[in-house]
C-alpha cells in the first residue's frame, strides 16, 4: 500500500520533543513518503537535520495554522498525490499512535469509509477532527477535495480555521456524497459513559453562565453532542482502542475528569512514549493559555466523581 503523509509541525520552544520524534518515526515506517511542514524556529538546527534524514522537510512562516501547512505540503507533492492509496494529513498535537499504524489501517480498510480520522465528532456539524485524517484515493481525485485546498486562504484566527476548514472540509466532503468516520467505534457502554461525563461537563459549564440563564445554558449544552476524543479519552487504555491521546486533553482537562490520572496511567502503560510528555507540557504551559469559556487546568475530581466517571477509573 502506497501512503503519503503530510505532517504539520510547530513547537513554541523551538524544540523537537520526543513524542514528535516517535510520531515521525512511526509515519516514516508506515508511509512511502512523509512531508513535514514546519513553522518551528528550531533552536538547534540538528533537529531539522534529524527530520530531513527521514522525511521531506518544508519550512515556512507561522501563518494559517496547520491547514495552510498541509496545503503547502499537498501542493508540493502536486499531481503525484493521486497515485497514492492513502493520503494522510496530521499534526503533532497528540501522543501516538499507541499501536502500530499498519494495524489501524488494516482495521479501517474493511470499513466503507471514504475518509476517516482518529476522531469523528458530531459537535457543531459532523466532522473528522483534523489532527489526523486519512483520505482514500477517489476522494483525493475528487473535484471537491481539489477545490477545497485550491481555494484555501491563510486564516490566522483559530475559531475561523475550525469553522471554515476543519468543519468546512467535512461538510464539503459529506455534501459531495462521501462517507466519513472515525477509528473509535462507540459501543453502548462507551455511549453511556460519554453521556454521563458530558452531562457533568454541561453542569460545570452552566455554572459559569449568568445567574438566570444557567438552566437554559445547561439544557443547551446537555443537548449538544460530545467530543469523543475528550469524553472517551481514556479509551486509549489499555490497548489503544483510541490510538492517541491529545495533548490538549492532558493540558486543559476540558471535561474535568482528572487528566493527570490519565497521564499517569499512560506513563505506566507506555513508559517510553510518555517519558517526556509531563515535562514537555510543564515547559510549554505559559504558551497554551486557557481558552475563553472553556473549563481549564488538570482537575482532581472528588472521589465519587472519580469513581463513577473519572478518567482511568
Amino acid at each position: 500500500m502506497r501512503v503519503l503523509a503530510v505532517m504539520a509541525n510547530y513547537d513554541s520552544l523551538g524544540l523537537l520533543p520526543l513524542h514528535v520524534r516517535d510520531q515521525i518515526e512511526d509515519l516514516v515506517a508506515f508511509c512511502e513518503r512523509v512531508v513535514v511542514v514546519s513553522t518551528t524556529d528550531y533552536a538547534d538546527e540538528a533537529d531539522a537535520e534529524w527530520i530531513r534524514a527521514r522525511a521531506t522537510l518544508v519550512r515556512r512562516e507561522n501563518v494559517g495554522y496547520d491547514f495552510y501547512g498541509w496545503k503547502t505540503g499537498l501542493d508540493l507533492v502536486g499531481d503525484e498525490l493521486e497515485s497514492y492509496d492513502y493520503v494522510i494529513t496530521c499534526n503533532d498535537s497528540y501522543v501516538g499512535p499507541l499501536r502500530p499504524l499498519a494495524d489501524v489501517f488494516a482495521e479501517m480498510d474493511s470499513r466503507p469509509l471514504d475518509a476517516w480520522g482518529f476522531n469523528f465528532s458530531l459537535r457543531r456539524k459532523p466532522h473528522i477532527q483534523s489532527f489526523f485524517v486519512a483520505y482514500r484515493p477517489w476522494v483525493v481525485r475528487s473535484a471537491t477535495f481539489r477545490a477545497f485546498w485550491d481555494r484555501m486562504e491563510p486564516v490566522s484566527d483559530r475559531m475561523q480555521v475550525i469553522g471554515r476548514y476543519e468543519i468546512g472540509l467535512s461538510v464539503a466532503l459529506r455534501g459531495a456524497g462521501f462517507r466519513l468516520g472515525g477509528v473509535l467505534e462507540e459501543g453502548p457502554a462507551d455511549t453511556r459513559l460519554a453521556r454521563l461525563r458530558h452531562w457533568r461537563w454541561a453542569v460545570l459549564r452552566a455554572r459559569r453562565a449568568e445567574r438566570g440563564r444557567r438552566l437554559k445554558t445547561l439544557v443547551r449544552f446537555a443537548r449538544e453532542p460530545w467530543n469523543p476524543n475528550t469524553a472517551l479519552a481514556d479509551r486509549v487504555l489499555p490497548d489503544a482502542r483510541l490510538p492517541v491521546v491529545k495533548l490538549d486533553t492532558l493540558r486543559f482537562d476540558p471535561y474535568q475528569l482528572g487528566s493527570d490520572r490519565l497521564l499517569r496511567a499512560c506513563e505506566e502503560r507506555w513508559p517510553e512514549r510518555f517519558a517526556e510528555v509531563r515535562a514537555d507540557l510543564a515547559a510549554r504551559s505559559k504558551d497554551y493559555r486557557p481558552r475563553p469559556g472553556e473549563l481549564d487546568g488538570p482537575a482532581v475530581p472528588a472521589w465519587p466523581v472519580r469513581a463513577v466517571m473519572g478518567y482511568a477509573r
Partner: protein
Amino acid sequence: MSLAQRARATVRHVPGVRRARRELWHRRDVHAIATSGLFDADWYRLQSGLDGSDEAALEDYVRRGRKRGLSPAPFFEPSAFDSSWRKRVQDPFAVFVADARARRERRWHSGLVFVEELGTLDGDRLAPPADDDVVVVQLDRDPDPQVTPTARTTWGRARAVLAERAGTWRAQEDRRTLLTRSSERPPGESGFRTAMARRPTPSRADAPVLVSVVMPTWNRQALVGRAVRSLQEQTLGDWELIVVDDGSVDDTVRVVEGIAHFDPRVRLVPLDRSGVGRARNEGIARARGRLVAFLDSDNTWEPDFLELMAKGMDALGSEAAFSSVEMVSSRRRDFRVGSGRHEHLLVGNHVDLNALVVRADVLDRVGGFAEDLRRTVDYELVLRLAASRTLDFLPFVGVVYTDDEDEGAGADRISVREPLTWDYVTRSRHLVDWEALASRRYEPGLVSVVTTTGSPRWATTAALAAVLRQEVPDHLEVVLVDRGGSLQDSTALGLLELVDPRLRVVRVATDLGVPLSLDVGLAEARGEAVALLPPGTVLEPRALSRCLEALGAGAACAQPLTVDSRDLVSGAGLLVARRGTWVPLLPEHPASDLDGAPAHLPVAALVGSALVARTAEVAAAGGLPPLMAGSLSFADLSVELARRTGRRPVVVHAARARTLGRGWSGPLAWTDRRVFEGRHRDAAADLSPLEHVGASLASLETRLDADGTAVDVQARLARRVGRVSGGPADGLPRLRWALVTSAPAGPKGTAWGDVHFGDALARALRRLGQDAHVYAREAGNRRSAHLDDVRLVLRGLDPVAADPGRATITWIISHPDTVGDDELSRSDAVFAAGRTWAERASLRSGRHVGFLPQCADGDRFRPGSTASTGSPSRLFVGNSRKVLRPSVAHLVGAGLELDVYGGGWEGLVPAGVVRGAYLPNEELGRAYWDAGLVLNDHWADMRQHGFIANRVFDAVAAGGRVISDHVDGVEDLLGDAVRTWRTPRELVDLALTPPLELFGDDAHRREVAARVRREHTFDARALDLLRVAAELGG
C-alpha cells in the same frame, strides 16, 4: 341576520343535522324527478356503467352521479341550467322539473349545440320526447344564425347519436381513471406477501446473477450513495449494480468508485454526456442478470422490493411486472396502482420505471430505451413493452416517494429542465403512424380542415361556423378533435355531426395539447389539402379558398393574415432578423401595413393562424411537433415543409382570419421558443418580408425575464422619412398617422360610421403621400405605436386613452356633450366639427378649439353622369334609432309621400314608406342625385352645437337637393345648396315647393357639388390636418 336565521345557521352546525338535511333534500329530489317522468334511466346507466333498476339509477344520480358530471337526461346539462348548482343542496334537475317556465322552453343550450322542440307539452306538463318527434339541432350561439346549417331530425336518431357518444365517453373515461391512483394500499398486499414468503428465491437459470440493476446518473453526488444503500439493504442479495455515469461534472463518479471499492457487485460505467436513454442502454448492454431492474440515482427501494418482484414474477411466469408506488406528501398519501395494458397506458403512464422489472431476454427483443428523447424515455419503453404483452401488477409497495425526494437535486432534474411536452412526443409515436399517412392516397379536390375544441365553448362554435361557411372550389370536410371534453361536450359534438355531414368529431381521452390533438385529427383527414386550424381562430369568408390558391401557385404552405380582437396583426408569419433570431412580422401593426405587399407574401415561417398545406407533405414532415405546446409548432412545421419542398411559406394578404383575444400562443410559450430556436438556430437572416411591406429593421428588442433569460425578441422597425414631392402637399413632411376612432374592433365596429369616416380620411391622407392607418378604440397600447408621428383622435361616442409623447390632434366629430376639458388639454391641437361648440369650448376651457366641419366622401359622392330622372321623390336614408325622427314624422304626419331606407322603422311609420333596410353605399350617390329631395335631420346635441352631419356634405357632393333642420353655420358653409327649416310648417312648405325653384337646374347643382367637392371633402380636411401636423413638428 335575524334571530331565526342565526338559529337556523347554528342548528346546521350541530353534528348530524347537515347530513339529515341533505338526506331530506335527496329524498325530495328523487321524488320530484321520479314523478316528472323526465329521468332517462337507460341514458344514465350508459354513462355510469351501472346495472340495476330505474329507481336505483335515479338514486345513484342524485347521490353520486351528478357530482361526477353525469347527466339525468340527454337534453339536460346542470351547468347550462344553473352555473352555480354545485353550491346548492338541491339537485338542478329537480329544480328544472319543478320550473314551469324552463320546461316550456323545450330547448337545450349546451354552448356547443342548440336543440329546440324537445318533448311535448301537455298543459304545464312536459313529456319526454318520443323517438319519432322532430327536433331542431344547430350550432349554439352562432353569430350568424341565418346561414347556420340547421338539422331537423327525429329524436330517435339524435338520441342514438347521443347514446353512442356517451358509450365512447364512458369507455375512454374508464381507461383514463382505471385504478391509477388510490388512497388505499394495493388490495391483496398482505396475501401476496404471505404467499411470497413461502416461495423459494427463483433460480438465476444459467445467468451469472439473478437481477441486474441499471442506474443511470448525472450530477447526483449527494444522492447516489443513498440509492445504492437502498440496494445494498435489499433482502435479496443476488444482484449486480451497473451505475452508468452520463458525464457528471461533480463528484458522482468518485463517490461511486468509493462504493464499488467496498462492494464488488457494483460496477461503474463512465460515459460522456449522451442522455439518459443511452446511459440506460449502456447499462442494459452490460447486464448479466436474468432480470433487469431500474433504479434512478435519486430514488430508493423498499428493502424487500427485489425479493418480492423476483418471486412474484416467477410465480406468474411474468415477462415484465411492476409494483405499486407510494407517494407521500405533507397533505396526503397516495398509492399508484393500475393496469399494465397498452390501451390504459396510452392514456397516461402509471408504471414507474423504478418499480418495473423486466426479463432480460424480453428487453433484448423489445430493444432498449429511445435515445432521441430527452424526457419520458421510461414511458416510451413502458408503452413499447406493453404493446406486445400485459405488464403484470404485483400488489405491494416497492417504492416510496416523499416530498423531500428532490432535496439535493433541484433544478438539475429532468422534470425541471425539460418540457412536459416530451410526454406528448412519446405518446404521438403510438398514436399516429406518419409513414402510413405519408404514403396514403388522398382524395383530389377534397379540402380537410382539422381543428380542435377550444375554451370557452363559443370559441369552438365560432370557429366551426366560419369554417362550415367557407366556399371552396370542391369539397370540404371538417375533422374536429374533442380533447377529452366532458360528457356533455362529447355528446353535444356528436349531435353537430347531424347538423352538417361534412363534420366529423374525433375524441381523444385526455387533453393532448393542441399540436398533438391536431396531429391525431390529421390522421383522419382524407383530403389532398389540409388546413390546420388552432382553437379560437375564425376564418373570414373566402380565407380558405385564397390560401388554397396560394398553394396552387407554388407555396409550400399558406396562412391567412390574422388579426386579434383589437384588429391588430397577430399572425403574419416570422422572419429571420439575424442568423437564428426569429421575430414576428409586423406584430400589433394595423393590417393596412400590408396593403402594398404581394398577394402571396413569402415569409420564413407561418405562425398565429391556420396553416394550409398538402396533406401528404404534412404527413411526410411528421405533422405538428408535439414537443411544442403552442403556436410555434405551426412555425416549425412550416419551416420543415419549406425545407422538404424547396418552396416558401406564404402569408395571403387577401385571406383574413381573426383570433379571439390576443391570439393563441399556447401554454409554455417560452419553452416552445427555446425548442424552436434550438432547432433553427442556423437559419440565415432574411429581411425580404420586411422589404415587401416597405419597412426596414431598426433594431431588435429583447425582453428578459427576472432570471435574465430572453423570453421575447421583437423587431423594431424604421419608418421612411422625407417630404412629399408634387401634388397639393408638395414640400410637406411624409408622416405616419394613427387615426384612432371610438368604434370597437372587429365585426361590431364595421356598423359604426366612425370607421367609415376614419377609412375615408386615411385614404385622403394617403393620396397626400402620408402613411395613415385606422385603429379601433382598443388598439391604444400596441407595440407598433412607436412608429407613429401623429395621433389623430377622431372623437366620437367615447374618449380615447391618452398617449403622451406623440403629436396628438383631436377632432371632435360627434357627441360633443361627452367631451371634457381634460381631453382638450391632452392634445396638441383640437378641432370640433361644430362652430358653436368650438367657440364656446375655447371660451370655457381657455384652450383654442378650431372649427373643422365634417365633410363629404369625394370618392363615393359625385353628381350622376346622366341627367336626373326628374322624380319628385323625397328620400330619407337613416336608421330610426328607436325614435320617430322629425323629418319623417312631420312629412308622414302631413300625409306626404316619402321613401325611407333604414332599419328599426317597424311600427313607427305606415307600411310602404320603408323601401329597404339599407341602401348599398355604391348606390347611395346616384340615389341622392336622382331624388327630388333629400331629407336630413340632426340629433339635438349636434344641432345645438353646430355639428353639420356628414350626410349633408355627402348628399350635396352628389348633387342632391338637401332639406335639413337648421344648424348654425350651415348657410355659411354650403350656401343655397341646403335649405333649412326650423318649424314643421317650414319643412312641409319646403317639401311642397317644386325642387327646381329651390335648387335650380342640373347644371347649377353640378356647380354647387363641384364647389363642395373642392372645399369640403376628406382631401381638403386631410390637407388642413397635414398642415397642422407639420406645424406641430410631427
